[in-house]
């Protein structure tokens, strides 16, 4: 049963990734990316990370994808028809390296031995993540808020009209 869920989710994910790589229209690319995000949220649920699946839905599928769609609507696409699709020569040059890297890293992950089970968890994913996040990683959490603030200020400065 676990492998059936794995097969469905990974097939969905791989098809959406191919859509992101090879579709021409940027709106279709953003929609394929939304499909990638939904498949990844399903995989997180399958792996038992419920908090991260919810945050993936809220942050990626709502905030980031809507931001992309807003930017796509502000740019007049009839002027930039020249820049659709992929560079063919770079694609042909990059595909052997891509396949080589996939095979090499997959061989490493396939044949290597990983660490075994550590301490037992309480079974409540949200409680575990929150406890670790607000005790051991409190300072990086605060730093993340500062990074978001600085990014907001930078985006406002970049997006204003020059007078």
């Amino acid at each position, binding site marked *: 049963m676990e492998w059936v869920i794995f097969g469905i989710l990974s097939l969905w994910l791989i098809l959406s990734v191919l859509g992101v790589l090879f579709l021409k229209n940027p709106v279709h690319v953003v929609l394929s990316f939304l499909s990638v995000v939904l498949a990844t949220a399903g995989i997180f649920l399958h792996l038992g990370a419920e908090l*991260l699946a919810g945050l993936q839905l809220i942050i990626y599928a709502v905030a980031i994808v809507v931001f992309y769609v807003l930017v796509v609507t502000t740019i007049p696409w009839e002027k930039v028809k020249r820049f659709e699709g992929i560079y063919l020569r770079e694609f042909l040059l990059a595909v052997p390296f*891509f396949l080589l890297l996939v095979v090499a890293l997959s061989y490493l992950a396939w044949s290597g031995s990983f660490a075994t089970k550590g301490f037992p968890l309480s079974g409540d994913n949200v409680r575990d993540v929150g406890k670790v996040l607000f005790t051991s990683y409190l300072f990086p959490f605060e730093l993340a808020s500062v990074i978001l603030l600085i990014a907001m200020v930078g985006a406002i400065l970049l997006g204003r009209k020059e007078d």
Partner: protein
Amino acid sequence: MTIEKAYMLISIFLFLSGLLGVIIRKNLITLLVSTELMLNGVNLGFVAMDRMVGGVEGQVFSLFVLAVAASEVAVGLGLVVSIFRLKGYEGSSEITHLRD
């Protein structure tokens, strides 16, 4: 072959597809979407390893990756819009000057 190892293979594929997309895509917005693919692949690897090892630190790091992804998309799309408005460029091969 456990299910976590299989998800590690999917995560490797997702990250390298993002890298391939950054190399081959023409449009700047689709190039940014490819970087998001790379970040998603790293998140997936973190969560898979987390279930294998038995902890929640990987999920905490994935949270930080989400925060960085949100700020990256804000700044990156602001840059794309201002490049298009000032220069009229929309392809990655047109941007060849650091200054005007």
